[in-house]
């Protein structure tokens, strides 16, 4: 089974802090994604990466950056955390397929609270 591991289940940070969310997958997937999940809004894509050192902005990249130095690891960075970034963050990975049918495999999420 594919395993996507997020380093923290819960995080509490202060406004202005730099925050790192780490994600590791063990199935040699090319694509990796960061989503945030908020009630009534579903999952919104922050950034994705389809190869090492490659990154693309998703729908809500403002206030975030990412790093993918190794294929299995995709990090989400909040340069200066703000209270409106309090959310559940989900990392996912998938195979690189052209048909658009490859499923996403998700981690269990990191619930971040910014005070």
């Amino acid at each position, binding site marked *: 089974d594919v395993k996507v591991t997020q380093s923290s289940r819960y995080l509490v940070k202060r406004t202005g802090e730099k925050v790192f969310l780490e994600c590791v997958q063990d199935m040699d997937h*090319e694509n990796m994604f960061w989503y945030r999940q908020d009630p009534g809004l*579903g999952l919104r894509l922050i950034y994705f990466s*389809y190869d090492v050192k490659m990154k693309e902005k998703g729908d809500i990249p403002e206030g975030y950056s990412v790093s993918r130095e190794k294929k299995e690891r995709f990090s989400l960075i909040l340069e200066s955390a703000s209270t409106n970034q309090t959310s559940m963050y989900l990392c996912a990975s998938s*195979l690189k397929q052209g048909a658009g*049918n490859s499923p996403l495999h998700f981690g269990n999420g990191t619930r971040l609270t910014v005070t």
Partner: protein
Amino acid sequence: TQLLEQSPQFLSIQEGENLTVYCNSSSVFSSLQWYRQEPGEGPVLLVTVVTGGEVKKLKRLTFQFGDARKDSSLHITAAQPGDTGLYLCAGAAILVTGGGNKLTFGTGTQLKVEL
């Protein structure tokens, strides 16, 4: 940004009842996926539909993709408490660069099935 609206947002029913969840968009998708998410876990793929008009069955769950590939429905027959969870639809668009899929998630339907 492509948008996917799900309805209803919340649904609380008794065991044995039938229900339908709708997923609608004004955009065309190459395929559509349905996920279920349980508390404390990431979403897990239930099914992928690819062809307009396609119907897929997964035990008591029936998924349909609209003829124009803009909408989908999930019908559950004789719901059970184990069906409780957050149901998410996700429309796939082929990544412009790198291949693979970029998913746009719906707003989610929280289902509770009581004894």
